[in-house]
């Protein structure tokens, strides 16, 4: 069994709203870079499958050469090999084409896992496009994966419940976070060992981008307005609060 996990290095996804600023329509380069939140869930899921079924686990990424030290965390967590396709496109088709190229080169991948969406673009479409390119089944929002007698059983999470699905082909799964795939903290020996592991850097390829043009990017500024309500009569205060919330269309 060979599992590949797609991991993207993104700017800090916890930058406070009031400190966030754009530079060239993207997050300012001053922010710390790290593996995306859901991608870490995907790595953790991959490691659990590796531990349970003795799979080989490849980490595949598309990005800058500078991302390597950050991606090593996925190796420290339990990944076996790291493959980085060099490129700087934000276009989902270009990214998917490059990842497809990497996966074809790695060969014999049975299952591709990826975080349900990247923490910078938040589109959640690259894995779908990739599955089309690879000709694999695509299932989104997966939280649990089991394998038995050549069949995969997966749990698909929805807002109000879950669905169990089975398939026997190769697939791309987008992974959502659950209490079962909280990313582990790598042990120190693994961090030290990961620093020495070779990384395969692949030259990116040109591909046809999405037929759309980015015109403008805006991040709304958060405003906090504080309003004090009278507290003489609690019932009356509750009524005022309810009215105000309705007035502002929060309810």
């Amino acid at each position, binding site marked *: 069994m060979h599992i590949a996990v797609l991991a993207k290095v993104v700017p*800090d996804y*916890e*930058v*406070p*709203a*009031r*400190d966030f600023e754009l530079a060239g329509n993207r997050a300012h380069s001053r922010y*710390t870079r*790290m593996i995306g939140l859901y991608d870490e869930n995907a790595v953790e899921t991959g490691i659990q499958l590796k531990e349970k079924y003795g799979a080989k686990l490849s980490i595949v990424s598309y990005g800058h050469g500078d991302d390597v030290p950050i991606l090593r965390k996925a190796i420290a967590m339990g990944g076996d090999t790291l493959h980085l396709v060099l490129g700087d496109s934000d276009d989902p088709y270009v990214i998917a084409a490059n990842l497809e190229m990497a996966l074809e080169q790695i060969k014999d991948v049975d299952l591709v896992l990826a975080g349900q969406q990247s923490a910078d673009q938040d589109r959640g479409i690259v894995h779908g496009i990739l599955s089309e390119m690879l000709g694999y089944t695509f299932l989104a929002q997966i939280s649990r994966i089991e394998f038995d007698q050549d069949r995969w059983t997966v749990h698909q999470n929805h807002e109000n419940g879950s669905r169990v699905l089975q398939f026997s082909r190769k697939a791309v799964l987008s992974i959502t976070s659950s209490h079962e795939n909280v990313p*582990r*903290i*790598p*042990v*120190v*020996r693994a*961090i*030290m*060992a990961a620093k020495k592991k070779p990384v395969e850097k692949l030259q990116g390829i040109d591909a046809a981008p999405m037929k759309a043009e980015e015109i403008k990017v805006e991040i709304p500024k958060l405003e906090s307005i504080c309003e004090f309500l009278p507290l003489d009569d609690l019932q009356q205060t509750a009524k005022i609060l309810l009215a105000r919330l309705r007035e502002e269309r929060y309810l």
Partner: protein
Amino acid sequence: MRVPYWNVDYGFLIDVLAVPVFAIFFSGLYSHYRKIRKGKEQLKLGWGKANVKKGPVFLKEVFTKSILGTRIYRKFYTGLAHGLVFSGMAILTLGTILVFANVTIKLPVFRGAFNHWFMSFGLDLAGISALAGLLFFFLRRLFPPDRLVTPKERTGFFPMIGLLALIIITGFLLESLRIRASGPEPASFVGNFVAGFIPANGPILSYHRYVWWFHGFIALGFIAYIPFSPMVHMVLAPVNTALADPRPGPKMGVIDFSSFDDEEGEDMPPMGVAKLGDFSRKRLLDFDTCLWCGRCHEVCPAAQTQRPLSPKMVVATLAEFLAANRFTDEPVDVIGIDAIFNCTTCAACMEACPISINQPKAIMQIRQNLVMERSELPELMSKAYNSLEQRRHPFFGTGAGPKDWQKGLDIPIFAPGKTEYLLWVGCAATYDERAQKIARAMVKILSAATVSFGILAKPRCTGDPAKQMGNEFLFTEIARENIEEFDSLGIKKLITLCPHCFNSFTRHYPELGGHYEVIPHSVLISDLIAANRLALNKSSESFCFHDPCYLARRNHIEQPPRRALEAMGTLIEMPRTKRESFCCGGGGGNYWSESSGIRINQVRAREALDTSSSLIATACPFCLLMLTDGVKKFTEDKKVFDIAELVEARLKLG
């Protein structure tokens, strides 16, 4: 004149018997030594600094903590009882040695004033003293305070108290029988008194012989039994205190990770401690020496708020592992992971320990192993750890940007060769909105006193939270980054707002090559007031001061913040203060921990509020945050302030 072995035939046989008895005694001690030798490292030999240490022995501590047992007297009656038994038995032993010397080398001890005042009066007084002390111990074991029995009680004291008392009582009886048969000895007041109750017409000489042999046998039996009973602390406790580094705090040191580089190496050392055999010899000596007296238990903030940790339980468990030779078993399975992470590293246990056991170091070494080798740490701590690793600060989910605290202030950036002090802001005062006010206040204070200072362009963390959470690797990585930046900027002097940063810079950074002159903000403020560089408005306000553990207990900085408060109003002390301060609950990474049940910060806040002082002052951002939260349970008033905030608000301007 007294005659040795009076009325006893073949009395020298007791002396002959002493030879195998001492052989058993030393063999028993050797068995302790053999176990302790299974620990990891050699005790460091060689001359220490300033001649206070010879080989592994701290000379001053030999006389103070070892021989005089100064720390035992922190509980006066227990200390007094120990003093009475120890000094009494020491004098009686000396008396017995002198008798032996009289027999063997004819030392004239039974003549004149020496016989009167020492051999008669002195030895009787010593016996009475020791008996009084033993009576105290007997009653205390019969009606034990909670600390002796919680969470478990060490047994074996009653037989030893009884045996020791019997030796003294038979000694007095022996003396009385001798006096009854041969006439009063003027200064032997106990012997003369008891002799008065002995009938004149009995077989006194026979009784005297029987008692003489009985006394001799039980005394020898006691000596032989010492190494196999809790009384071995008579030997181990002085040794342990003499070998304990007297500097305050657990002295965690740093780990050289280069030894872990060779993955294929056959003998990979563990990170931290997993098995008993991973501990150093000094730690094993600690466990072997511990009497389970529970002084650590009763000052531990975790134990006193019914959390799963008791330092006594940790050391007692490790002692049981040692006694059972379980060197390859993992004690954390018995101690519990929760217990290990509940330690706030406040070091109150260590401060209270009368025999200088380093409980926090043992706990932290197990924690290091859990974190670095097993990746096991509580959820909130792991979030803080992740943030520290990725963002270089532990305040995950903060709503504050790195420069938010500077809004409206014109703060100089440290200029190499021009600026004197680096104002080290630290993570809490950068990323927590409440703690930011400390940094803002300090900037205004430094500006008012015209101190040459600057900050770093990009905020940093010392890495101390990683160290406290048990990840020495991450700490070392962050510390090295900081040292590199300090070197590039030529930084030599630092002002810290946080005692944890101060402790890290002064205790751990030098071991990684970073040597700086570091001054805590409370000390600098006090110095500036004393030098009349800060003028303050004094009022009738009263302040109580919560001593941060990392300032008072770990670094013995107690007076400067008090002097600053006294310059503004009246100081009121809490019952637990200075080195005996009670932790706020936020240390050891426990600022990022789930709280349920009795909360440490609320206990401390209640204690502070009970002083009825106008305001509660502290000198640590973590203490500030914990106490601010703790006070909320009892009042809505804003009561807790950092010393910098208080000073800044009372500055006489112009």
